[in-house]
């Protein structure tokens, strides 16, 4: 009877000790996990911080000193009473209209820095290629939408694509005929 009661006590004690160890272990792991989570959060904040972003941007700018050129392929659609099958617009007129709308939207400084120039324009197809500096891509496309008329004729300028070289731009233009 006595032997039975002592064995029961030992079993209860071992159970208690084991549960205590399990609790301690879980607390230890919890603390460790929290510290890791904190560290991860701090790391994420550090990555997103303005200073780091500015530093990365500066490194990126240093690496690529040269601002790349791009070529935009576009099409001009015309509409009006004076428009017939022999009607066509001059390249210089289209270029001036696009530059005018760009200047109205973003100013003269942005226009001169963007390096916009008409490289090729086909009077027959009313399609052309325009050169510009790569950072001004969205500005130029926005300006295309802002063009209302060329020489008193209502027009719609549609961007067809952007290319890195003039050769590819011209080949794309030929494919899109």
């Amino acid at each position, binding site marked *: 009877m006595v032997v039975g009661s002592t064995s029961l006590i030992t079993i209860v004690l071992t159970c208690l000790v084991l549960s205590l160890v399990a609790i301690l272990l879980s607390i230890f792991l919890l603390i460790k996990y929290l510290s890791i989570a904190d560290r991860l959060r701090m790391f994420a904040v550090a990555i997103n911080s303005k200073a780091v972003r500015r530093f990365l941007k500066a490194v990126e700018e240093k690496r690529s000193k040269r601002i790349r050129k791009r070529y935009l392929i576009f099409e001009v659609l015309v509409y009006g009473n004076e428009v017939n099958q022999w009607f066509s617009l001059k390249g210089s007129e289209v270029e001036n209209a696009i530059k005018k709308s760009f200047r109205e939207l973003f100013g003269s400084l942005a226009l001169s820095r963007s390096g916009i120039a008409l490289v090729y324009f086909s009077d027959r197809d009313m399609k052309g290629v325009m050169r510009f500096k790569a950072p001004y*891509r*969205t*500005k130029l496309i*926005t300006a*295309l*939408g802002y063009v209302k008329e060329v020489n008193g004729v209502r027009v*719609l300028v*549609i*961007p067809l694509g952007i290319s890195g070289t003039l050769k590819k731009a011209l080949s794309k233009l030929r494919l899109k005929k």
Partner: protein
Amino acid sequence: MGYRVICVEGLSRSIAHNGILFIPRKTSNNINDLLRTKHHVLKVYLVSSPNDLKSYPKLRSIVALVCLSSKAFSVLTPKHVERLITLGLPIELAIRDVYKVVNEGRNLKGLDYLVSAVESGRLRLIACSGASTYLELLHPKVITSTLIELGVDEVNALKAVTSTPAKVIRGLRHGGR
């Protein structure tokens, strides 16, 4: 131009032509007027002043979209934008109206509040050309570029012309892709 679906005001039923689905659309700032409209029509609530947002609890079950007119761009306050957020409906922005406001030299502060709400992910934006004639249509690339220039993130700008309008149109069950 790359459009798959065009919503046209005053159309009686949906028409598929040259691979483009034309869907009828009804724009009004009168809720009763929109209630009487058939279920397959895209119902758009036009907001031209903050007073139009007073009856907003009713709107959720009636309309699919809330459209902001050019007048609203300069009169919207953060409070009204919060009201639009609680409404939970996508906001339609006509780019032609933005050009109009820019051309007139009016303040775009209301639009700035809207853009910050879109950037925080609390508001869904749909951008459209807002064309009333054929030559007023804008290419989707022009729309996204304009949104980027207005301060919208590139991902959100692309969503505004692709997935968000697609979800709204799918809700009308016209069998579109």
